[in-house]
């Protein structure tokens, strides 16, 4: 039998002499001495983890250790803690190995005194007070038929019977531990990679409690995906930003691996009360970085926000509002540990485009990991499809600036309102009809711009002036069949004709393909408003259908070109 002894000079003297001795032995012994005292800098679990990781490379038939590895205090029962680590951590290669505790204390006493005492009631765990070589050998001989590795079923029984209580500071720090667990289970669902240890999560990853909750909520390895999944494809060439003061706990790793096709994945990992307290570099990143999606944690100020109840007071909400103030089209997915309906509603009301509820070991239920992953995937897909809104918003802002600069306020105000209205309708559009209304609203902006250039003349006098210059006036010919600007006659007074007239009058030319696009757009608009059959006078460059983002973008491009051309 291959037996491993772990001790801190607190196994019986005769047994220590025996295992270190040179006499021929029936069994194959290996010994791991544990250092006398844990380091001040390392938490005890970290110390144990490092020691076991560096020492336990092989599988054994039996592991023998004292009830306590502590030098002077038997009540610490650190031997049981060490054994629990071995049982819960695959990296030590002995999760199923039988364990024998040697010690003078009775089971009854251990059950009363040790918080981990339930470990002794689990399969393949034994207790003996043997303290001589003869007694030890006799114990082995007597029990050799039941010293067996745990079966899978028995490992399940072990998990059901054994309990590791949350650390005393879990109430204060559960945000961090739960955070790490949530990131780890997501990472394990979507990738075969192990969460790496960082300065931010090393201690938590090594803690017995974390290993316990992770093993208890063990999930199967992801199946063979054989290539990129759809979300990874969607992420190709895209840019993302994660804002999370605990990004190094695992969320950055999990998300960046999930979206590994991305062109760019940046992170802001600093604690802050609000947007203004972020460093200048971080604010620049948010304002200037061209991100398709920003993942934003609701709480960016650690335990200081544990007692906050009102959603608006969370630091993440303040940052969200600012991001939306800068550009309403920026897609923001809020990360929150809260599953309370009023908190989630508050996120959406504040402008979040989606949210992700970070899993916690406290609220785990069957299939919750899978459902949680699917929810994240769908939210990312949804936001990626809407990422174009950011560009539209920027362009609208730019056009507004141009109009404000060049056009009298009387004309400019309705233009700005129509632009704003069209953007709101576009950003909330979820079906064909809603996209059509967004289109219609944008068309309204176009009509207002046209009005600036063409207005009815009264007794041949221009009605509107801009910088003392009259805007263009039109006259209807005597038969009412065409309008005339500066002596040049145009056809009927449809808006398309007006736009073309403006081009010809101001620039002396118009691109014919552009003119055809204008006719098509007007035809689509009229069809929708007058509920007639769709009939485009010219072949469509993009989709002929009205009722999706492409028709809006088509119109927007025309509006943009028109305004820029007219004010050049």
């Amino acid at each position, binding site marked *: 039998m291959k037996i491993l002894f772990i001790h801190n000079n607190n196994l019986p*003297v005769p047994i220590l002499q025996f295992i270190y001795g040179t006499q021929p032995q029936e069994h194959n012994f290996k010994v791991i001495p544990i250092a006398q005292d844990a380091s001040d800098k390392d938490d005890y679990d970290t110390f144990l983890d490092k020691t076991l990781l560096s020492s336990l490379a092989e599988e054994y038939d039996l592991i023998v250790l004292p009830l306590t590895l502590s*030098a*002077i205090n038997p009540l610490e029962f650190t031997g049981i803690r060490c054994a629990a680590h071995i049982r819960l951590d695959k990296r030590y290669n002995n999760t199923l190995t039988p364990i024998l505790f040697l010690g003078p204390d009775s089971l009854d006493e251990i059950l009363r005194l040790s918080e981990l005492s339930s470990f002794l009631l689990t399969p393949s765990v034994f207790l003996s007070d043997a303290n001589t070589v003869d007694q030890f050998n006799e114990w082995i001989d007597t029990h050799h038929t039941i010293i067996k590795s745990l079966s899978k079923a028995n490992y399940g029984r072990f998990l059901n019977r054994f309990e590791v209580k949350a650390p005393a500071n879990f109430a204060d720090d559960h945000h961090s531990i739960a955070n790490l667990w949530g990131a780890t289970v997501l990472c394990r669902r979507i990738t075969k990679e192990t969460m790496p240890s960082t300065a931010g999560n090393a201690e938590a990853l090594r803690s017995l409690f974390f290993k316990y909750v992770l093993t208890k909520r063990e999930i199967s390895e992801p199946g063979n995906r054989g290539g990129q999944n759809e979300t990874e494809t969607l992420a190709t060439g895209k840019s993302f930003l994660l804002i999370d003061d605990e990004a190094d706990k695992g969320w950055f790793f999990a998300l960046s691996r999930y979206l590994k096709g991305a062109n760019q994945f940046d992170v802001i990992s600093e604690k802050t009360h609000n947007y203004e307290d972020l460093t200048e570099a971080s604010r620049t990143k948010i304002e200037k970085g061209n991100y398709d999606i920003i993942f934003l944690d609701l709480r960016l100020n650690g335990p200081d926000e544990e007692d906050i109840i009102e959603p608006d007071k969370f630091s993440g909400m303040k940052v969200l509002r600012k991001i939306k103030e800068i550009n309403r089209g920026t897609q923001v997915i809020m990360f929150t540990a809260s599953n309370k309906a009023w908190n989630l509603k508050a996120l959406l009301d504040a402008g979040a485009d989606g949210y992700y509820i970070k899993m916690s070991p406290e609220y785990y239920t069957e299939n919750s990991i899978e459902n949680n992953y699917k929810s994240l995937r769908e939210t990312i897909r949804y936001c990626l499809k809407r990422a174009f809104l950011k560009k539209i918003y920027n362009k609208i802002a730019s056009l507004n600036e141009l109009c404000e600069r060049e056009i009298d306020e009387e004309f400019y105000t309705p233009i700005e309102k129509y632009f704003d209205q069209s953007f709101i309708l576009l950003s909330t559009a979820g079906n064909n009809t809603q996209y059509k209304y967004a289109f219609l609203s944008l068309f309204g902006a176009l009509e207002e711009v046209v009005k600036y250039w063409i207005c009815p003349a009264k007794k041949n006098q221009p009605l509107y002036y801009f910088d003392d210059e009259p805007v263009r006036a039109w006259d209807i010919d005597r038969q009412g069949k065409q309008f005339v600007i500066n002596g040049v006659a145009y056809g009927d007074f449809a808006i398309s004709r007006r736009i073309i007239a403006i081009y010809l009058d101001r620039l002396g030319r118009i691109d014919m393909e552009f003119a055809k696009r204008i006719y098509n757009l007007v035809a689509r608009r009229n069809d929708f408003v007058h509920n007639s059959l769709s009939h485009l006078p010219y072949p469509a460059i993009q989709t002929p259908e009205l009722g999706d983002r492409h028709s809006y973008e088509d119109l927007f491009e025309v509006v943009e070109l028109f305004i820029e051309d007219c004010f050049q």
Partner: protein
Amino acid sequence: MGLSIFSSFTRMSHRIVIIDDRPNRPYLHLPEDTIGKLKKLPNVHFATSMCDVDCDKFDVIAIHRSYVVSANLSEELDYLIKNESKYLILFSGGVSQQTVSNRGHKAILGSEVFYSSHLLPFCEDLSSGEDIQLYKLLYGIDTWKLPILMRLRQLYWLDPDEEDTDIDDEKEEIEDALGIDSIEVLEAEITQLVMAI
């Protein structure tokens, strides 16, 4: 012989300094009136950094562990234990396992254990001149002997042939200090304390 689990101080009031860089932390764990009583004890001093403290004046130094790490005080504090026979308590929010080491002169424990209902009686006990026993803080005034008694039992068990002189010395020290003259007496005392938990 070096450090002993039993202090060799004469009967005089022992002084404790509690160094916590977050002065509000005690209020998270203890009621205000208990903290008030602690602050009134003449042998208890509160500080927020080592800079304000002359360690020579104190027998027990309790300090938040994160501050020890950030201010790089480990070596200095170890020196105080070994060479000045001081007692050191490191407390922190993130302790997975409390430990006692350096022959009972050093304890690492959670903040909730340090700032527990045991703290006031522990400090009052220090002022009475009784031997300094960090176990009184960890396990309470009524149960502090239990780990020592169990250690004695462990020593008997570790060396059945009584070959190891270090074990013998430690056994004798405990037997003398606690007045244990037989295994039967030892087991009876252990049973009594365990059943009371």
